[in-house]
């Protein structure tokens, strides 16, 4: 027993090493991973990394208001004299938290329901779950999220809940497709014949075969969720001022558009940067795990 376990472990270790080799040979994945690492570090250590951490809140200094990018303020200052670079670093916090919270809530729910529906394909359980997802995906996620946010009081928490509510069906659909096709494979049938329980089959036999697409989707979705979150903030239904948020900053800066372009443009570039990072990281993971299409 002990021996097989070590052999199993070392085989797994071999697999991880092989995957890492493939991942590291792809320059784009490395760039993506680096970008995300930098952004996460900036978000966590924002109070230390930001040149003017006190500018994250409702700080006002009209002497330095609306300054174009200069040495003291590399991205310029907004109409209240707050350093835009510092506010972007703090804005990363909200974006990353949004992505992490939404995915950690939505993915397990969607995956579990998708596995159950896929394994019980053809029964009423399958019908109920999948028709429910049909309803949720019949409207673009952004529209329903906007509606839910507007009906509730706008806040960061409600924005996250609204996006989570719209996000699980996509995981459910993806996992359903995989699960319903591998439930007829021999190894699942073998487990059934040896008397394995339904829970064991769903979570120990079928789920491990879905890891590749799931991880790829999680990485790509981080970017999407952050986009949706910034869109909610953009219309004022997400983070409320003075909390620094990239979407809110773009919206505020848009009002001073042609003359004070830096107020909107730098936060906009920051959003692009984050999403770009998650996208190429996701592509890297897809290639590494040899996932066809997510």
């Amino acid at each position, binding site marked *: 027993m002990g021996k097989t376990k070590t052999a199993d472990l070392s085989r797994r270790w071999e697999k991880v090493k092989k995957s890492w080799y493939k991942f590291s040979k792809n320059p784009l994945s490395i760039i993506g991973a680096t970008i995300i690492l930098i952004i996460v570090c900036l978000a966590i250590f924002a109070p230390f990394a930001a040149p003017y951490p006190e500018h994250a809140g409702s700080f006002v200094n009209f002497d330095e208001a609306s300054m174009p990018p200069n040495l003291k303020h590399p991205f310029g200052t907004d109409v209240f004299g707050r350093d835009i670079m510092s506010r972007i670093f703090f804005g990363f916090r909200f974006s990353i938290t949004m992505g992490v919270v939404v995915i950690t809530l939505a993915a397990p729910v969607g995956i579990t329901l998708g596995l159950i529906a896929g394994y019980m394909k053809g029964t009423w359980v399958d019908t109920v779950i999948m028709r429910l997802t049909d*309803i*949720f995906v019949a409207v*673009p996620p952004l*529209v329903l999220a906007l*509606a839910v946010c*507007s*009906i509730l009081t706008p806040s960061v928490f409600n924005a996250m809940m609204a996006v989570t509510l719209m996000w699980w069906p996509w995981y459910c659909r993806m996992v*359903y497709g995989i699960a319903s096709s591998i439930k007829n494979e021999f190894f699942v049938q073998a487990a059934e014949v040896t008397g394995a329980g339904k829970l064991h089959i769903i979570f120990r036999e079928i789920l491990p075969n879905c890891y590749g697409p799931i991880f790829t989707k999680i990485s790509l979705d981080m970017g999407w969720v952050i*986009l949706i979150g910034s869109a909610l903030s953009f219309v004022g239904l997400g983070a409320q001022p003075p909390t620094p948020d990239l979407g809110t900053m773009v919206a505020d800066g848009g009002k001073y*558009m042609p003359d004070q372009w830096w107020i909107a443009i730098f936060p906009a570039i920051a959003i692009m940067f984050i999403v770009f990072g998650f996208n190429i990281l996701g592509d890297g993971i897809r290639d590494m795990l040899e996932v066809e299409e997510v």
Partner: protein
Amino acid sequence: MRFLKFFARRLLHSIFVLLGLSVLVFLIARVMPGDPARMALGPRVPEEIVEKYREDLHLNKPIYVQYYYWLIGAIRGDFGMSLFTKRNVADDIREFFPATLELILFTGIVMSTFGIMLGVIAARYANKWPDNVVRVISYMGVCTPAFVFAILFLLLFGYILNLLPTIGRLSPWLDRPPVVTGFITIDSLIAGNLVAFFDGLKHLIMPGLALALGPMAQEARITRSSMTENLQRDFIALERSQAIPERRIMTKYLMRISIIPTVSVLGLDFASQLGWAFLVELIFNWPGLSRYGINVMMRKDLNAIVAVIMVIGLLFLIVNIIVDIVVAGLDPRIRLGAERSK
């Protein structure tokens, strides 16, 4: 016959989804904290009038009874009154919907033509410089939200180059052509008013591009990967061995099957741009359904919110049916009636 059966099944499914969506949206709208009657009438109206309002709109009945009355109204095209415009919601939608549809159709045309074109170019010159250029454009497109494109375009074309109008559908000094379809470009063509046509088209360019660039990038990527994959197939080798001209193989045989995944995604993207249109219409002050949607959301105008979402859901389902039919037409192997891969 098979087609009819397929169509009927899709239609039935769509009706079911619409009903489900209406329940969902109705629930979301009613679990809201606060009293809808009080919100509709304002804080200073005496209680007995509020009570009468509740009575008239069945707001004092259990939620399933309220839903029943709402559904009866909705089937007749009556979505109640809007608190924001003080008009019938159905009239509002009739007025604003064509503007959004015109914008979205323009977006769809731009993203499908250029997306497929870029994808074909990338596949034709796989791993050479055009492919790399397309790849860079794709990444830019995928990671930039539509509202950022909108603001960048405003700055570049609207203010710096001063090439394109920045707000609305038509310049204020032009008379609106008589309404036939509700599309300014088509109406002005019908009226023979070329000035208005080009003006309307110019107004479409910035919001349309802002919406189209993201999905366009995705179409390009999908078309490229599907084409390069199919290029390895046996039937291409067979056609080449029969000395069919390369151009003809590319356009006639390879394109046709390679754009199937693109079309599937195109339908989804087309519909999901309705979501981003909420922001883009706001930025360009485009008098469409999405701007109306944002306005009523900001005012918690429940009747209007529910109606806007239902209209978008309906459009989404129609697009999906069209996509299914187009895909089936492109690929004879896909049996109509067989379920599309999820």
